[in-house]
């Protein structure tokens, strides 16, 4: 376009009024000659507008491509994160399944322990029940001792004839004494056995639960038969509950990461769509450049024709050379390529506004 401007400037170099021209004509020629550089200036300014908008459009395009590229990177990373999360989810799901298996084992163990404890407590009760039987044995021993003593007295009364019977009475008394001693010994052993069984079932650790468990009764219960059972049961329940909680939290955590990764992919796709639309809108620069170029071409034409007018006034050119100027509006209208240009023309000239019925996209 600049080459065209330079060409126009060259054609105007010979402009100027003749020496014989009237003062009015001379002044008109000077005015026209003075106005002609304005066309050149406007042309240059409009070319600069085109260059500036082109640079701006290209900068915007470059920026948009950078944003799009960054969004693409984000989408890629989000995709990787989603894959990673998916892999981890499977692994965590396996862990959760293992935890559930562990919970089942713990629950079986819990049931077993409760049954075993009950069996032991029943055994302790049975053993303590033997004490009653020992009491009967001791009562029999005491009765036997009394009987032996009476027998011994009766044997003494019998004199020489009761000597043999006295030996038997003495043996019976000794037997009763041994029975009583054995019963006492068995009683002590039974008590010791019951005590040992109770001790074996008792909790001696001083705490009843894993960290985080809320059980304030545990310490108070520890060391008693009923408390021992409750403490152990609660411990196992707390462990099972913690396992369930852990598995649930793991599933929630991986679910949230997965959701976030999917949202990132969706957002990146939105950015991609928007940047594509923005790139498409940059065609405005090409459209406006063509509109401005049409204005520039018209200005150049007018400059050339005004030069001709000056030439006619100066007597150096034929009057027919400016005939085209009279149809300038028609020539401008014929040079339009866009419906928008035609609409602007019609608004200025008062011509009827025509609706563009041609589709923006047409396949033949």
């Amino acid at each position, binding site marked *: 376009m600049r080459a065209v401007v330079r060409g126009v400037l060259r054609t105007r170099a010979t402009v100027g009024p003749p020496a014989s021209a009237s003062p009015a004509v001379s002044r008109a020629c000077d005015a026209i000659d003075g106005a002609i550089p304005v066309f050149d200036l406007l042309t240059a300014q409009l070319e600069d507008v085109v260059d500036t908008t*082109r640079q701006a*459009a*290209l900068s915007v*395009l470059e920026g*948009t*491509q950078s944003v*799009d590229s960054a969004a693409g990177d984000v989408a890629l990373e989000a995709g990787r994160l989603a894959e990673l999360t998916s892999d981890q989810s499977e692994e965590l799901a396996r862990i959760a399944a293992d935890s559930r298996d562990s919970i089942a084992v713990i629950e079986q163990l819990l049931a077993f322990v409760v049954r075993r404890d009950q069996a032991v407590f029943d055994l302790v009760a049975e053993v303590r029940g033997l004490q009653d039987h020992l009491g009967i044995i001791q009562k029999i021993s005491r009765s036997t001792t009394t009987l032996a003593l009476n027998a011994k007295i009766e044997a003494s009364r019998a004199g020489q004839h009761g000597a043999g019977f006295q030996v038997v009475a003495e043996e019976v008394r000794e037997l009763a004494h041994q029975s009583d001693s054995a019963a006492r010994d068995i009683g002590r052993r039974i008590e010791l056995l019951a005590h040992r069984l109770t001790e074996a079932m008792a909790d001696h650790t001083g705490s009843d639960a894993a960290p985080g468990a809320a059980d304030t009764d545990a310490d108070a219960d520890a060391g008693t038969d009923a408390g021992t059972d409750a403490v152990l049961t609660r411990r196992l329940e707390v462990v099972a509950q913690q396992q369930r909680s852990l598995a649930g939290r793991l599933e929630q955590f991986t679910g949230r990461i997965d959701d976030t990764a999917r949202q990132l992919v969706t957002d990146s796709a939105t950015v*991609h769509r928007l940047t*594509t*639309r923005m*790139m*498409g*809108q*940059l*065609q*405005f*620069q*090409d*459209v406006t*450049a*063509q509109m401005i170029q049409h204005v520039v071409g018209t200005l150049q034409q007018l400059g050339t024709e005004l030069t001709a007018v000056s030439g006619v006034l100066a007597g150096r050119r034929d009057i027919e050379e400016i005939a085209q100027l009279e149809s300038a509006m028609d020539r401008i209208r014929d040079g339009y*390529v*866009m*419906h928008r240009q035609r609409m602007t023309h019609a608004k200025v000239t008062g011509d009827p506004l025509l609706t*563009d019925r*041609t589709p*923006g*996209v*047409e*396949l*033949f």
Partner: protein
Amino acid sequence: MTTIMIVDDSPTTLMSMSAILTKDGFRVITAVDGQDALTKVGKDRPDLIITDYNMPKMDGMVFIKEARKVSGLRFTPILMLTTESDPAKRGEAKAAGATGWLVKPVNPDALMTVIRKVLPGA
């Protein structure tokens, strides 16, 4: 990979169209006018050509006529992407062998729809 040639003297249009089409997975080659395009299609046969109308050296209409003489381009879809909206010129382009007419600025989604219509496998 589907190759699309963009022919336009506007750097803005060349770059924006290239970016849009590349993003959608097409391979893009560019030419600044009809003459440049005719030189390049000999080396790199495109599956689709999108050309401007008003260009220096050789405009879009002449380019389409010349391209249709090249044996390998006889049935290649050629779309005219231009600011021109004159119905007479559309008719002229159709007669010259153009496949379709798109008025600038064209919406990228609309452009993709047209491309998928003229290149069903793309």
